[in-house]
C-alpha cells in the first residue's frame, strides 16, 4: 500500500456562526482504511468539522469530496457514512435488533437477509444474543457497541465517531479503546473520531489532527505530533511541557539565564528571543556520576514532589536558570535511589535533540 486511495478530502472548509469563525481554511485528506482523530480543546471546531462531513452542519465555504464525489451540498441522507454520537442516540423503544436493522429495513432488503446481517453485526461487536433487549437494559459500554453496530450496518465507507467514549467510566473506556480499534482494523472502514482526550487520540489513531481555534495546527502520526510538535500549541496541548525563556546564541546554542544549552542547529539567528519547549521525561539521570560530564548537564534543587503512582513529577529550581523552574519525571524507583526529597540537589542532563524551539510571538 504505497499510495492508498483517498476516502475523504476537505478543501478550504470555512464555517462561521455570525461573526464567530468556527473553522478557517481547513484542508485535509483522509486515506482509505485509516483511523484519524480530531483532537483539540473544547470549542476548537472539531465537532463542527465532523458535523460538516456528516452534512448535519452546512459549511460557509469550501468543499467536501468523498470517494471522488463532491458532496459539499448533499444532505446527510445522500452521503455515505455511519455515525456514533456521544449519547449513542439509540432508539429507546426499539430492541437492539430493531435498532441495528433501522436503516436496513428502509433499503427494502429481504427479511432473512436483514436478520442475518443483524446477527453478524452483533457477533462482530461481541454481543451475540442480546438482540431482543432494550437499550436501557444494557450497560453504557454495551450501548456504545450497539450504536457502532447500527452505524456499520449498511457497510458505509466512512465511520464518524463523535466523542464515543466520553460518557463511559475510566475502566470501560480503556477497554473499549482497544476494542474499537480492533474492530475498525477488522472491518477496514475509514474512521474519523472526535475527541478531546489526548491519550485516546494517541493510543487509537493512525494519524492525529490537532486543532485549535478553528484551524488545524498539525497533522501527523501520534509519535510525530508528540515528539515533533510543529507549533507551541501542539507542544503545550499534548502531554506536559516545560517552557523556558531563552536567547539564541547561534548554531543551535541557547542561553537560559546564565546557562547555555546545546540543541541541533536550526535556522534561528543569534540574538533572537525564543521559547524552549521540553518534556519532563526528556532528561538523562545520573549514570554513576557521569551525568555531570554530559552536554546540557544541570543541577536542580527539589522544591516539590507530586507523587503520581508509578511516577513522580518533581518541581525543581535549576542552578543558573535565574528563577525559571522545571518539572522533571522520575520513576518511583529512581526517586528513591537518587534521594529525591524537598531540598535535595539532583544532577541531571537534558536531551538536547528533544528540545523544540519556537520564536517568541
Amino acid at each position, binding site marked *: 500500500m504505497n499510495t492508498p486511495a483517498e476516502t475523504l478530502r476537505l478543501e478550504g472548509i470555512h464555517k462561521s456562526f455570525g461573526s464567530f469563525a468556527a473553522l478557517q481554511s481547513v484542508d485535509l485528506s483522509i486515506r482509505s482504511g485509516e483511523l484519524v482523530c480530531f483532537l483539540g480543546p473544547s470549542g476548537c471546531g472539531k465537532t463542527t468539522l465532523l458535523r460538516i462531513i456528516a452534512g448535519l452542519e452546512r459549511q460557509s465555504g469550501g468543499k467536501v469530496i468523498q470517494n471522488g464525489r463532491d458532496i459539499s451540498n*448533499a*444532505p446527510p441522507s445522500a452521503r455515505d457514512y455511519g455515525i456514533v454520537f456521544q449519547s449513542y442516540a439509540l432508539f429507546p423503544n426499539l430492541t437492539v435488533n430493531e435498532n441495528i436493522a433501522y436503516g436496513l429495513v428502509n433499503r427494502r432488503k429481504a427479511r432473512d437477509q436483514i436478520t442475518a446481517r443483524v446477527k453478524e453485526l452483533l457477533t462482530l461487536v461481541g454481543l451475540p444474543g442480546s438482540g431482543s433487549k432494550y437499550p436501557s437494559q444494557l450497560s453504557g459500554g454495551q450501548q456504545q457497541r450497539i450504536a457502532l453496530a447500527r452505524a456499520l450496518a449498511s457497510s458505509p465507507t466512512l465511520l464518524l465517531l463523535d466523542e464515543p467514549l466520553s460518557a463511559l467510566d475510566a475502566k470501560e473506556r480503556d477497554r473499549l479503546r482497544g476494542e474499537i480499534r480492533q474492530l475498525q482494523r477488522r472491518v477496514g472502514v475509514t474512521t474519523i473520531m472526535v475527541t478531546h482526550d489526548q491519550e485516546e487520540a494517541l493510543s487509537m489513531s493512525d494519524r492525529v489532527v490537532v486543532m485549535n481555534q478553528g484551524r488545524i495546527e498539525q497533522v501527523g502520526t501520534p509519535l510525530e505530533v508528540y515528539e515533533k510538535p510543529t507549533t507551541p500549541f501542539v507542544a503545550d496541548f499534548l502531554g506536559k511541557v516545560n517552557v523556558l525563556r531563552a536567547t539564541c546564541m547561534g548554531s543551535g546554542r541557547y542561553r537560559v539565564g546564565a546557562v547555555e544549552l546545546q540543541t541541533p542547529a536550526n535556522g534561528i539567528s543569534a540574538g533572537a528571543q525564543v521559547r524552549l519547549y521540553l518534556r519532563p521525561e526528556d532528561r538523562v539521570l545520573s549514570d554513576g556520576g557521569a551525568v555531570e560530564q554530559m552536554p546540557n548537564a544541570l543541577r536542580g534543587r527539589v522544591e516539590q514532589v507530586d507523587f503520581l503512582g508509578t511516577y513522580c513529577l518533581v518541581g525543581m529550581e535549576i542552578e543558573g536558570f535565574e528563577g525559571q523552574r522545571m518539572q522533571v519525571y522520575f520513576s518511583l524507583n529512581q526517586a528513591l535511589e537518587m534521594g529525591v526529597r524537598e531540598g535535595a540537589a539532583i544532577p541531571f542532563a537534558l536531551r538536547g535533540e528533544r528540545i523544540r524551539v519556537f520564536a517568541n510571538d
Partner: protein
Amino acid sequence: MSVVAPDFRVKLTRFGSERFATFGGLLLVALGLLVFLTLPLAMLFERALEGRDGEFVGLANIIEYLRSPAFARSLVNTATFALLTTAITVPLAFGFAYAIQRSRIPFKGLWRNIAMIPILAPSMLAAISFIYLFGNQGWLKAMLPWLGISSIYGMPGMVMSMAFASFPHAVMILLAGLSLSDARLYEAADALATPGWRKFWTITLPGARYGLISAAMVVFTMAVSEFGVPKVIGGNVSVLAVDVYKQVIGQQNFSMGAVVGIVLLTPAVIAFAIDYVVQRRQQALLSARSVPYQPQPARWRDKLLLVYVMLISAALLLVVGMAAYGSVVKLWPYNLSLTLSHYTYGFEEYGIEHAYVNSLQMATWTAVLGAALTFAGAYWLEKTKGADLLRPVIRFQAMLPMAVPGMVLGIAYILFFNHPDNPVNWLYGTMTILVLSTIIHFYSSSHLTAVTALKQLDNEFESVSASLKVPFYKTFSRVTVPVCLPSILDIARYYFVNAMTTISAVVFLYSPKTMLASVSILQLDEAGAMGSAAAMATLIVLTSAVVTGVLFALEWWLLRRTQAWRNTAQR
C-alpha cells in the same frame, strides 16, 4: 464491503421534499397561530381606536372609558376581587402543599387528588354551591353573621367561589415550588442548632418564594379575567370581565368591548411577564448537586397538618357535593325529595337539551385535534433545522395565549371572524370555531408539555436517521410519538377538561345550535333554574372525571406495557 453508488437524483428529490416538509410544516404552524391568534388580537387593538361606525377616533374610546364612573367602579371591584382572592387562596394552598411535600401525613395521594377536583368543574359550580349553602334559602345562612358577612351575593361569594376554582392551580405550582429543596441546607441548619420556626423563615419560605409569586400571579390573573363567578354570585358588583360581556353582547358596542378587552389584557400581560421572569430564576435556583429533602416524622406538626388538610379537603368536597345534591333535590330547600327531573325536563324546558352533547363533541374534537396539532407544532419547532427566522416568531406566538384572558380572545374572535370582509367568516357560529378558539386558548400549557417531552429525547435521533437514510416521518412515527405518548395523552386530557369547563372565550362564539353545557349554566342561572344549573355543572364534573380517569388508566397501562424500555418513567 459493498460500496453501492447511491442514486444521486433520487436522494436529492427526497432531500428537497424533506426540506419542503420542514419549511412547510413550520410555515403552517406560524400561519395557523397568525390567523387564529395574532390577527384577531391585532383586530382588537384596531377596533379600540374606531367609533361605532368604524370611523377612526384615536384614543377617544379609551379616554372616554377610563373617565367613566362605571369604569372606576369596575376597576376597584375587580382589583378588590382579585387581591382578596389571591390573599386567601395562596396561603391556604401553601399550607396544603407544605403538608404534602414537607410532612409525613398519610394518604398524600388522596389529598392531592381531592385538591385537583375543582379543575374538573366549571368555575360557576362553586358559585352555585355557595348560593345553595349561604344564599337566601341557604342551609348554612345563619353562619354568615359569624363571619361578618351580611349576604353571600357580591364580593364575599365571589371571593369564596374564586378561591375554590383557583385552589388547585395554586397548589400545583406550590407543590412544584416546595419540591425544589436542598436537604443540605437543612442539615447545615441542624448542625448549627437552628430551631424549627427559624428554619421555616430562613430556608423554606425563601426557597419557595418564586413558587409563591408564581402562584399569586396565576390566581390574580384568573380572578381578574373571571366571568362566570361574578355573573352568577356577584349580585350588583360590577367587574371588568362582565362589563366586556355587557358591552359586546348586551349593547353590541364592539369598539367599547375592545377597549375593555384591552384594559383586561393589561394586568394579565403584566402578571405573565412577572411570572416569566420568576420562572427563569427558579430554574437557576437548584444546582444539579442538590440533595432532595426527606421530611422526618414530627408528631405534632404532622397531626396539625393532617387536620388542616382534612378540613380543606372536606370543604372542597362539600362544595362539589352540595352542587350534586342540589341537582337531585326537587325544590331546595322546601321539598328535599330526590329526583332526576332537573337533568331531564329541566334541560328541555330551557331548550338546552343538546348543550351537553355539543360540549362532549367540542371537547372530544379539541382533545384529539388539539393534541395532534400541538404535538406536531412542537415537533416541527424543536426537531427540525433551518428556517431560523421563523422559529422565534412561532415560539412567541405559542406562549402568547397564556397572557391572553379567554374573554379577550373571545372578543378578538368576534371582531375578526364576524367581520363581513373576512373570507372565513362562515366559521363564525360553527362548532369549528369553538374548537379552534379553545385549542388556542389553552395552547401555551399544552405546547410547553409537548416541548418538555420532546426535549427529553436525544437530539441526535433525527441526525442518526438521516445517516441511516430513513426519512424523518418514519422516525417520527416509529420513535418520537411512541416515546412521547404519555405526554400526548396528558395534553389530550388537559384540552378535554378545559373544553368541558371553559366559558370565557366561547361565550362570545356559540350560536343557538352550538350552545355548550358550560355556557348553558349561565342561562339556567339567569332564568332562575338553580336545580338545572347545578345539574349541568355536576354533569360536567362527572364527564371530566370519567374522561380523566379513563385517560389516566390508559397512561398507566401504557407505561406498564412499555416499562421494559421506559426506565425513566417516574409515575
